[in-house]
């Protein structure tokens, strides 16, 4: 039964993590009784709160960049060029190891003497997110019927009006899916943020990284439980959204 085993493997650690977050004791290893105190401590942790806010700022900012540029890029690649080279270039940030991107950007930011901060992470996350958005939107475009666009031209619409009224609505589910992907990737991203964030602001993964490095604490369990809950909700909401988007596009 490798099927269920896979799910057990994937979920067991997480379930233990969540259970332990309700531990009343100080140890992360032995369960002593039920309590919500770690959630209280978590709520009082300013660093985590700030990390969370920063992460959301970065994710939102990079998603906007990635969605706009990635969509344009996908349309351009699918409809306006046949260059394999450009295709490969657009995909590169998604395929390169994050560490390589991270140090490339670090070196580059140093070279141009850019002050590091959330903006530098936003730019960096925008880079790989754009590749993912472009890839998602492109699949949709390749599957999409070019005859719709031609029909629009044929009925007297210019290129701009065709793009706005036909291409874009067709792509919407893909764009939404791409944007969601970009957002979640950015939320979770650690390595690039670690190298390109300034001193003054830290994203949540970086906060978590230094917390873990200084030892295990049930606070992290509580954080994990909350993140899991949020992810659950987000995934389900995301699915609904895509589905709605899809039916809209079809209707």
């Amino acid at each position, binding site marked *: 039964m490798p099927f269920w085993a896979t799910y057990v493997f994937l979920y067991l650690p997480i379930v233990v993590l969540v259970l332990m977050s309700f531990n009343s004791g100080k*140890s992360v*290893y032995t369960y002593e009784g039920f309590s919500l105190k770690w959630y209280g401590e978590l709520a009082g942790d300013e*660093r985590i709160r700030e990390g969370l806010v920063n992460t959301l700022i970065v994710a939102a900012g990079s998603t906007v960049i990635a969605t706009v540029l990635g969509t344009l890029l996908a349309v351009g690649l699918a409809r306006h060029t046949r260059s394999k080279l450009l295709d490969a270039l657009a995909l590169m940030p998604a395929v390169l190891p994050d560490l390589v991107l991270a140090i490339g950007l*670090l070196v580059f*930011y*140093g*070279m*141009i*003497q*850019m*002050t*590091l*901060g959330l903006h530098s992470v936003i730019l960096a996350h925008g880079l790989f997110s754009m590749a993912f958005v472009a890839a998602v939107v492109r699949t949709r475009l390749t599957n999409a019927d070019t005859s719709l666009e031609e029909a629009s031209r044929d009925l007297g619409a210019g290129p701009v009006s065709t793009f706005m009224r036909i291409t874009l609505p067709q792509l919407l589910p893909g764009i939404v899916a791409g944007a969601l992907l970009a957002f979640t990737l950015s939320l979770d991203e650690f390595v690039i943020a670690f*190298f390109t964030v*300034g*001193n*003054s*602001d*830290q994203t949540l993964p970086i906060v978590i*990284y*230094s917390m873990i*490095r*200084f*030892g*295990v604490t049930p606070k992290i369990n509580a954080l994990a439980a909350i993140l899991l809950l949020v992810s659950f909700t987000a995934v389900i909401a995301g699915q609904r959204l895509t589905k709605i988007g899809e039916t809209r596009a079809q209707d």
Partner: protein
Amino acid sequence: AAACGGESSNSSGGTSAAAADLKPNADLSKQKLQITVWDGYTPKELPEKAKEKLKVSEVEVTLHATNEEAMTKLTAGGDSGIDVAFVSGQYAQALNAQGLLEPIHPELIPNLANLYPEATQLSYDKGNKYSVPYTWGTTGICYRSDLVKAKPTSWNDILKPPSWADKKVTMMTTERWLALPALKALGYSVNTEKDEEIEKVKQLLLDAKPHLLAYDDTTFGDRLKSGEAVMVEAWDGWCPTTDEKQNIKFEVPKEGSDLWVDTMVIMKSSKNKEAAHAFINYILDPEIHRWAAENINYKVPNKAAMDKVTISPGSLLGIKPAELLNGESLIDLGQASTKYTRLAEEIKAQS
């Protein structure tokens, strides 16, 4: 450019440019401070209190986990945005060598007078030209008195642990401290650049590796408390000797150890240099500085502050400066420091 390294020798920062013209009476309310410091190394309320006291427009504190993290950010970009950084002595030295530090203007920091005289003659920066010490201490063996069969006295107790301690010892992972036990056990300087000495050190460390639990800089205290480890290489302040169970002890091995200093430096790129000086001066205030000693268990090189500290049982704060100075001060080795990077890599890559 930041990316261009300096070429000066070690000690007393050759390339440090002429000090900026600072006005003792500058209007601090137009300046704000960005400070980077280790997590948990300053009081939580420090920003508000400093802001109130110094009358600056804002004080913001950001945290780093390790020297390396801080260094990356301070040396990477143009303006890091940081005014005051807390880094260890040899890193301050490296920053200065790259021309990134503002010379200290002693006239703006009257509280320098509170420092022990010894604390003004530390080998990485004699005369406190570009750094001001914040805490100091040494490295030794931290152990569970109830779990060890014999009290550790030598670095060899960690390097060649007896069978009851096998796989229950940890050593540090940052390169200079990784090398330290072996360097000292073999009677070498912690700042040695000699290849043959480093080679011997390497052999010793390689032999030690199979008996280690892990290389760990940050959580060795927890490991002792949980009993996962019985002996660890530790900085004095992080050895939890004041734990309520009172079963954890600290020992500086007989072969000797280092003297490390965590310092405060002002970045050359700072636009708030007067406020930065005022901030350092504020930290050196005995009432403020004693907080560090009392709360993070690190000794501070501030005589006036230490005199006010009440020393709890088991605390290591009682160690006197003279004793500390037995330890060898760590300095940045410039080009030769890569030998230690390589050493650490070789040890860790060995399986």
